[in-house]
């Protein structure tokens, strides 16, 4: 029994000493990260969708901070994020590279879904629920419409639908913009059906 106690105490004491030494070393060899990268990263939507051409939000933030990338590549962030980034970087705002598109929403056709879970793994915001060999479905509120789940689906049962425009998110679109045009088309379509 005492042997066990000695063993635990000595190992614990040794680990403690090593931990303290490492903690001091951490302070001594502290590395100042680029504060700009963290600030930019905080502005980005953290969907890690990769639509900017970088493997995630942090790499894009790093690229913007060192001037490699333009401020206007973040698709989910839209115009608002672009303006914030431009403001932080002190550069002129640029038009969004991607055409402002109508907000999309992924939809799994459940009768065709084979329950392979590949789309669940692809989803950067965990908006797809399901289990192996069970139908998957998309949580509409969480879906950012990034289309990353469409490619991995082996049976092509994911459709990108237009996100229904909710009254609480609706605002009057500026005239002569893509969004106004889309709204117009939508109203026309609706009138046609009615």
């Amino acid at each position, binding site marked *: 029994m005492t*042997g066990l106690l000695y063993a635990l105490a000595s*190992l614990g004491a*040794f680990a403690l000493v*090593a*931990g303290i*030494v*490492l903690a001091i070393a*951490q302070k001594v*060899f502290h*590395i100042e990260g680029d504060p700009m990268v963290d600030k930019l990263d905080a502005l980005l939507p953290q969907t890690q969708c990769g639509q900017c051409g970088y493997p995630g939000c942090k790499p894009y933030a790093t690229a913007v901070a060192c001037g490699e990338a333009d401020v206007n590549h973040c698709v989910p962030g839209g115009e608002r994020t672009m303006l914030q980034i431009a403001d932080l970087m002190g550069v002129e705002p640029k038009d969004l590279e991607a055409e402002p598109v109508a907000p999309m929403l992924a939809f799994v056709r459940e009768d065709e879904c084979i329950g392979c879970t590949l789309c669940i793994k692809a989803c950067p915001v965990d908006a797809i629920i399901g289990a192996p060999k069970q139908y998957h479905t998309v949580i509409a509120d969480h879906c950012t419409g990034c289309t990353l789940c469409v490619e991995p689906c082996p049976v092509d049962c994911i459709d990108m639908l237009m996100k229904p425009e909710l009254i609480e998110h609706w605002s009057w679109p500026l005239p002569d913009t893509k969004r106004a045009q889309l709204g117009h088309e939508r109203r026309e379509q609706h009138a046609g059906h009615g």
Partner: protein
Amino acid sequence: MTEIALILLSSVLVNNFVLTKFLGICPFLGTSSKVETAVGMSFAVMFVMTVASTVSWLVQQYVLIPLELEYLQTIFFILIIAALVQFIEMMIHKTSPVLYQGLGIFLPLITTNCAVLGVAILNVQQEQTFLTSALYGFGAAVGFALVLILFAGLRERIEVAPVPTLFKGSPLALITAGMMSLAFMGFSGLVKF
């Protein structure tokens, strides 16, 4: 004096850890594609091996033997090595970010470099004194460094040589390592036991 020279000679050339004991093969193949990273790796391993062998000797003599805890040898030694590697990782990250990038995953992997643990355990098994165990650790590290840098130099030249596609890359690296090993086996005739 002769003893010191003998220990160094033995651990650097005759009982070279990489080429005659076949310990630490992973970083030997992994970090040898460029001489620059090989040199950095060599110094990191040299530091870790020397300090690890002395600290583990001290722990063995003043903690494990008095408390009759020799059965905890492996876990203690691994703890020492892991802490040392963490320390040197922070140091390299601070002092030379380029080297840090170059070494990449192989820097934290020194923790699992069997040559480091091997030196510590062999020191205990051979019942070395404090000085000889430190020398043995240092010698083994110098041997590792020598072989790693030589091998990196060879690989850099082989990279630009016209070799059959079949042998390009890893196969030729492994063949080269085998031939170096054969050459180092020749050193075993250097000391008559």
